């Protein structure tokens, strides 16, 4: 998965110098309806439900919607190329941490121009889509991460799902035996590694503005201790979230940190019984704070005011309660409107733990805005230094912060 992403980035990068207007910017459809282009990075199985939502919304607002799907990490390279050749799509999907960079470049229009203000949405969703206090992107459905455990392995060992750090360490140790680690997470040197570290850092009072604090060091120490105790594979420094999922489905890890986008794969794994709980907190009774994930929909500055207005309507429709329900059900993520999320919680027990997690989630870019990537790089660098035993957590965080 990571390799295909690299290939996609490389391919996308090669396209930048060839900023040739290769994409038609729309125009009137044959039926006389306006054609809106929409660009996203969805791939099967999540692609079909999104297409269905686009189509239904097109009918609602009286436009034909043409969707282009760009492979994962290639999206930003493509967007940059399009913004220099002035061929941006009418509606652009962006992963929420990328909204900052693209909004900063001036390529997006404020959603308030189209009467969209984010009322009724989870606070973190609005924060994640805002750049310098202005809302530019809104995500219809969001996700986060939680602790996913193998029900049968825990039952056989007589262990209840851990709620605190001490319980997690204890459970991970007891669940470790030859050929099976107790716990798995992603500690890779990409933003995925940072994303998985956030719940530990935030729940302990750590902050991304300054990572050189005892709170963050304690959080890192927890992960280091589990790796040193042998309850977690040393290879986590090379594992992306996909690798973590593979370890879990292969029965090589009894518990893992991962998100609801893996539910389809987990359901497809035969004979695997699993369940989710929020990520353990330092002490009992604390609120687990996880990072918010999800794709926002934005309206790029294409210059055509009337089409931008129509695109605004499309973004509003994609974020309507009805669309949110469709997307959440099909793609197993959480509606970003709190009221719709509550409905999903009662109707789908699988998603119920995530509704709580998302309600308490935090946007990664909320504090630092466009400077988040720099902090994220520092965080995974420090994590890698500590996990590989090169430095103590405190020393690693100190070095990374001053980098």
């Amino acid at each position, binding site marked *: 998965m*990571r*390799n*295909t992403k*690299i*290939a996609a*980035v*490389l391919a996308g*990068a090669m396209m930048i*110098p060839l900023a040739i207007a290769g994409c038609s910017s729309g125009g009137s459809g044959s039926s006389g309806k306006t054609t809106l282009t929409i660009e996203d990075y969805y791939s099967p199985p999540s692609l079909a439900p999104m297409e269905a939502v686009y189509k239904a919304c097109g009918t609602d607002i009286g436009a034909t919607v043409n969707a282009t799907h760009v492979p994962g990490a290639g999206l*930003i*390279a493509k967007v*940059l*190329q399009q*913004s*220099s050749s002035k061929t941006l799509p009418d509606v652009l999907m962006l992963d929420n941490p990328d909204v900052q*960079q*693209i909004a*900063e*470049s*001036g*390529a997006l229009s404020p959603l308030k121009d189209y009467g969209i203000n984010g009322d009724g949405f989870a606070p973190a969703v609005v924060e994640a889509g805002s750049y310098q206090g202005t809302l530019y992107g809104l995500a219809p459905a969001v996700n986060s991460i939680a602790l996913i455990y193998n029900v049968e392995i825990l039952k056989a060992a007589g262990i209840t799902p851990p709620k605190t750090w001490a319980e997690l360490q204890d459970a991970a140790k007891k669940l470790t035996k030859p050929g099976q680690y107790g716990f798995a997470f992603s500690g*890779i*040197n*990409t933003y995925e590694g940072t994303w998985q570290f956030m719940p530990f850092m935030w729940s302990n009072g750590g902050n991304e503005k300054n990572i050189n604090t005892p709170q963050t060091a304690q959080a890192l120490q927890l992960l280091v201790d589990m790796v040193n105790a042998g309850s977690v*594979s*040393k*290879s*986590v*420094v*090379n594992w992306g979230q996909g690798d973590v999922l593979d370890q879990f489905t292969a029965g*090589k890890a009894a518990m893992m940190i991962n998100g609801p986008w893996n539910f389809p794969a987990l359901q497809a794994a035969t004979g695997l019984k699993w369940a989710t709980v929020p990520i353990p907190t330092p002490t009992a009774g604390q609120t687990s704070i996880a990072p918010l994930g999800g794709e926002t929909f934005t309206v790029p*500055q294409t210059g055509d005011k009337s089409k931008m207005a129509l695109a605004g309507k499309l973004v509003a429709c994609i974020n309507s309660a009805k669309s949110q329900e469709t997307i959440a059900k099909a793609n197993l993520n959480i509606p970003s409107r709190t009221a719709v999320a509550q409905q999903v919680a009662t109707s789908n027990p699988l998603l119920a733990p995530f509704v709580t997690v998302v309600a308490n989630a935090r946007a990664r870019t909320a504090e630092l805005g466009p400077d988040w*990537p*720099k902090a994220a*790089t520092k965080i995974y*660098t420090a994590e*890698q*230094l500590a*996990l*590989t035993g*090169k430095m103590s957590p405190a020393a690693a965080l100190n*070095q990374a912060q001053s*980098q």
Partner: protein
Amino acid sequence: MFLVPALAFIVLFFGYPVVKNMIMGFQDYSTKTFFTGEAPWVGFSNYVAVISSSLFSTAVINTALFTIGSIIGQFVIGLALAVYFRRRFPLNNLLRSLLLLPWLLPLIASSAVWKWILDQDSGVLNQTLLFFHVINTPIPWLSSPDMALVAVIIVNIWLGIPFNVTILYGGLQGISEELYEAAALDGATKWKAFRHITWPMLRPVASVVLVLGVVYTLKALDIILGLTGGGPANATQTLTTLSYHESFVNFSFGTGAAISNILIVVSMVFTFIYLRVNRRPVDE
């Protein structure tokens, strides 16, 4: 007039990107630039930022170790195989063509396979070594900062062998069999024949292989990204991965270009040597 197509090709596909890259190295070229078209001139501040970053010295050292290690390994094994294949034996041609396989595989695919082979817990390599009691505990090939660079070099050597064998084998074909017969009559041993006939005759070819090898290895990116992504803890971060990271992860294209410009200069030094080496046989 005959030069026009060649000239147009060079200007379009080599001149423009290189010049553009040089200019970008002096600009604050960010995501904003793509939308506004404005890239403020910042002089040498990209270079200052890059060179004063704590990662730069790590990357330079890693690049040097990666290049030297890969070249020595590739060349020695490549030469040994080329000499070996000079002998006539059954299946010689078949084996020689099989040797080209690493070259034919897409790098993304082979690095994914190597990642699996080198896995600490369930990788084939560790399992095999454990089975034969060569080691007692699994070697953390890709998950230890002390081993990762070695592992990446080993994979790159594997990757570079076909190139070395092919060119060196071609060079060996050019050495007349009569020389060896004459030497054998004079009572030369195999080693002496290699030392006094093969090596001197092969030297021009060997220099070409080495210089091209250095240039190819300096710019190696995909194999490192595929195996470790520059990690763990920046242990395999080279100038190319650093440049890639600056440009396509941080979207700071100015500093990314500055790093690749430094690489271009280093490569040009070796290209210059290559051209000199290539010219000499004609002069002689």
